[in-house]
């Protein structure tokens, strides 16, 4: 018990947040979701109840294939939160998913020093209790 209590936990999303709760619930099934507007076709991310392109209310949830390209990244080397302080150095990136949305994520399965802009990455998951956290790793074979 003492060991478990001493290990700081990753901050988790609030499942009561109305716009983003469906996204996080879908992670339990291993699905990375995004939205497309039925009226104007805009890709919407982060999730909302309205389209950011036209204001329309009809958004369709779709599941991403989970493949993308690193648009930019950083290696976090100093952090004030105990969970992340124990994780440094680690790479965070903005990844452009092939479906046309861009998300902040962590790059795992690679030496942070080897991460590059333009690198192809694929979805991986990290279990975190009630939800799973979408992270990305260099695509196998690349």
């Amino acid at each position, binding site marked *: 018990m003492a060991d478990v209590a001493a290990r700081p936990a*990753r*901050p*988790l*999303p*609030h499942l009561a*947040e109305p*716009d*983003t709760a469906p*996204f*996080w619930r879908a992670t339990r099934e291993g699905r990375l979701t995004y939205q497309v507007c039925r009226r104007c076709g805009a*890709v919407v*991310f*982060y*999730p*909302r109840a309205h389209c950011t392109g036209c204001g329309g209310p009809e958004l369709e949830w779709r599941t991403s294939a989970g493949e993308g390209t690193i*648009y*930019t*990244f*950083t*290696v*976090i*080397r*100093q*952090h*004030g*939160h105990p*969970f*992340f302080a124990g*994780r440094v150095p680690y790479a*965070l*990136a*903005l990844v*452009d998913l092939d479906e*046309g*949305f*861009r*998300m*902040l*994520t*962590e790059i795992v399965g690679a030496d942070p020093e080897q991460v590059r*802009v*333009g690198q192809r990455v694929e979805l991986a998951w990290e279990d*975190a209790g009630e939800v799973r*956290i979408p992270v990305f790793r260099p695509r196998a074979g690349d």
Partner: protein
Amino acid sequence: MGRERRAAIAGVHEFGPRRAETMSALQIKALSAARALEDAGLTWADVDALYDAGETGPAAGLALAEYLGVRPTVVDTTAVGGSSFELHAAHAVRAIATGKARVALLTYGSTAHSERRAIGTGPRGNRGPASNMEAPYGLTLVGNYALVARRHMHQYGTTAAQLAEIAVTTRAHAMRNPDAVRGLHDLGHREVREITVEDVLASRLIADPLHLFDCCIISDGGGAVVIVAPEVTRDLRHRPVWILGAGEAVGYLEPGADLTVSAAARSGPIAFGEAGVRPEEIDVAMIYDSFTITVLTILEDLGFCAKGEGGAYVEGGRLRFDRPGAPALNTDGGGLSSNHPGMRGIFLLIEATRQLRGTSTAQVPGARLAVAHGNGGQLATHHVAGTIVLGRD
């Protein structure tokens, strides 16, 4: 052809100490307000418009008016982070131009250092859908700016040494500013001296590619600015510093957007256009320097150089106060080396005013035109730009 005289900065005050353990932020604001009004030759009773960024708590328009004991008939609590004060100045010009106000008061106070707030690397709050998507990843504030810097390097070949030039220039300016020098000592800096590009590159990486010296310091501090109608300027103690143009713009993460372009690319042309001034005419550029990459990005976006050429533009100390041919950058020492209590926008207006009065500690001879550009929030991903063009007669 612009350059219309609609409102002027009449009084300024910068709270000197960078550590104020025994004071509250409200006390810093009240003290600064009194000094700025005195600087203008005006009184408490003259204030009829109050602007506040809400850094001391909720319901700021009410709380601050009551605390100060002023009775404004224009209240504006625009709160967009560090650029709030540029937006306040923009709004004050409008209120004055429409006859709703004669004497506008802007104040700022913060005890960020004494509270040991880890602004750059501390845990972030999680409120609302945007942060609910990002909370699990632990992106620090520094990390956000590092994402922009990395992309800029990738896209244009910008180097860490070029970013370092900005920190070197602002430190050189800080070393001429007694408040900044005292502040660096008081904040516990071991070596208070000019720095080199090599010093910056040798400082530890906080979030690649940003080093410690690419990041602003965290201090206590505050200040106040008094903006008045043209008819009030006749009785001033100092020559008026006219607000010639103002621009505002908002930027955030969008699919496919170019992260190396900030909202300054939209607020800048509005402000310069209104002023009838071109960037190459500017003598002093007060650019929000939370991090070196903030300055590099905004210099490009405001049109001082082409997008992607900021690295070469800042090389060789080109933006030092004593180099003709380019604007002097952050002549008070900036957030990188003078003070950064969390929201630095008010100091941009204060130092620009000093320059146009001829009283800066790194004075540009004969300075006539200045720009103050604030960046609130986080550069590129969630931010608000405020550009103010200032000039003297």
